[in-house]
């Protein structure tokens, strides 16, 4: 177990290291950011000054190593636009996105798992078809359209929910639904197919052959197995939500990291963009690790060899 954990940790570190390189390269793709940072009306000398101030005149790899070196000391850099340490900026934005992601995931799981289980228990019935249609239709609706629709309906027309910002829990309802519904079909399908498989498996047949109560068969001997791949998928989906919340956060003016990322891209605030890419990568890596551990807890075949 310890060997496995340390191996996984090393792997995760390696992934994050490569990701950091890609993030850095992406941000420096267009070459020298100084011209844009210097702003309107800057002369060539001004740009040169910015270049020197921020060290963009150095070779790319030196800049990268400098950046990595600073990250290792816990310094994620400084936002040139917001004039604050990126660490502080992220500390303000990450909780918003984390809250949004968790709410969205909760919404998605609460909807998809029961639906998937019921659909699997009654394959090819009306309820199964209904669930499948929900999935197909749900996946066809782009989240920004859905978000705008929600805003129009509940924000403007009925005036039930606040439209923008992240001050109260009420503010999170529409964004969470808009973000979470997109993960619903995938999780539902996986739950359904997992349940279909496991309900036909030998050990479930054994459980039924020994007269166990139906709910025990379904929950203890069925769902317990079907949920294992769902855990991994949920972690992946949560990771996607962190990265995919840009559109939703922009529409609802939710000041999370997606919003920050999009603003920073437009502001050419490169240290923030780099840091966000890195943080999302790290979050994703940690999430998959957590999912693996949770799977090990659920499945003794992984845990005990």
């Amino acid at each position: 177990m310890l060997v496995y954990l340390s191996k996984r940790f090393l792997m995760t570190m390696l992934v994050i290291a490569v990701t950091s390189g890609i993030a850095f390269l992406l941000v420096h793709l267009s070459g020298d950011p100084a011209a844009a940072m210097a702003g309107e009306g800057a002369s060539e000398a001004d740009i040169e000054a910015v270049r020197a101030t921020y060290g963009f005149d150095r070779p790319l790899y030196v800049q990268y190593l400098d950046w990595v070196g600073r990250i290792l000391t816990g310094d994620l850099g400084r936002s040139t636009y917001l004039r604050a340490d990126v660490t502080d900026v992220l500390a303000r934005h990450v909780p918003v996105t984390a809250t949004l992601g968790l709410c969205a995931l909760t919404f998605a799981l609460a909807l998809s798992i029961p639906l998937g289980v019921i659909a699997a228990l009654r394959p090819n019935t009306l309820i199964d078809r209904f669930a499948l249609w929900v999935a197909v239709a749900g996946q066809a609706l782009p989240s920004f359209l859905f978000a705008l629709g929600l805003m129009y309906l509940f924000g403007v027309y009925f005036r039930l929910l606040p439209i923008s910002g992240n001050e109260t829990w009420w503010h999170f309802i529409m964004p969470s639904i808009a973000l979470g519904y997109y993960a619903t079909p995938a999780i539902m399908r996986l739950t359904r197919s997992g349940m279909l498989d496991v309900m036909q498996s030998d050990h479930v047949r054994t459980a039924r052959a020994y007269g166990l109560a139906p709910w025990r068969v379904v929950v203890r001997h069925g769902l317990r197995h079907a949920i294992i791949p769902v855990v991994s998928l949920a972690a992946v989906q949560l990771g996607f939500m962190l990265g995919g919340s840009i559109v939703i956060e922009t529409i609802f003016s939710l000041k999370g990291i997606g919003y920050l990322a999009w603003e920073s891209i437009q502001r050419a605030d490169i240290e923030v963009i780099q840091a966000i890419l890195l943080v999302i990568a790290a979050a994703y890596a940690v999430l998959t690790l957590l999912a693996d551990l949770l799977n090990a807890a659920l499945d003794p075949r992984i845990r005990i060899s």
Partner: protein
Amino acid sequence: MNNMTTSAQDGAPVSLSPGRIALRRAFRHGGFWIGGTIILAIILIAIFAPLLTPYDPSVQSLSKGFVPPVWAKDGSWLHPLGTDNLGRDYLARLLYGARISLGLALLTVIISGTIGTAMGITAGYWGGWPDMIINFFITVRLTLPVVLVALVVVALIGSSLWLLILVIGLLLWDRFAIVVRSATQQLAQREYITSARAIGSSTPRILFREILPNITGPLVVVASIEIAHAILLEAALSFLGLGVQPPDVSWGLMVAEAKAQLLFRPWMIAIPGAALVLLIFAINLVGDALRDVTTPEGKA
């Protein structure tokens, strides 16, 4: 139960390949029919757009902006779906927009499908080190948020159509790689792969004659998912203003341009939005149908 032997019993002189059988089953599948018809209609619309409207989608008439569609007050058959802010015919834009939306999705999927399949087969067939390295790349790719990376690249380099296709293509190969890898791993354990090696087949022959034809099922299903994904991604990028650029027009761009009119001219967003939803819905239906007919337990 024993339906494997049906054809042998029929003694049919003409034998159907598994692919033909799957296709036959697909044609008996309701979802395949509905989805396929919609997709075919949209493809035809895209191809024959110039015949279907007299307007050029990019010709403007600034004084004739915001004509409402025919069913609204002040609408006319002159512009059945009205005009946009620059006075361009909305129907013409919708018809031509199908070209970009479909073409872009198709090209990106060709790129991502080639990359992903190559990586998946390599990892699945050889295992060991190649597998570890490719797995690592898949993990790295998954840790990079698609929308964000696409935004950064497009924002910093510029959003030409080809760059967009390339970027999306280079971002969406992960599912291909994952699915092809596991499908190949399963196949590699099949005895006919061992047989192929034992009869002295070269590696390319094994990859292209033995493995590739047998993973077309999952490949087609993933392709359908990724086509829908690419269309949605382009739409999301367009929504943020960094997708397809004028004078090209895509449905995503139309939605983006119309979103300012959400409160007061909702049809402007509803028309391309509905087209987008319909197209993706149809693709998903077909994808689902293909999944049903290519996986034996799909219809359980």
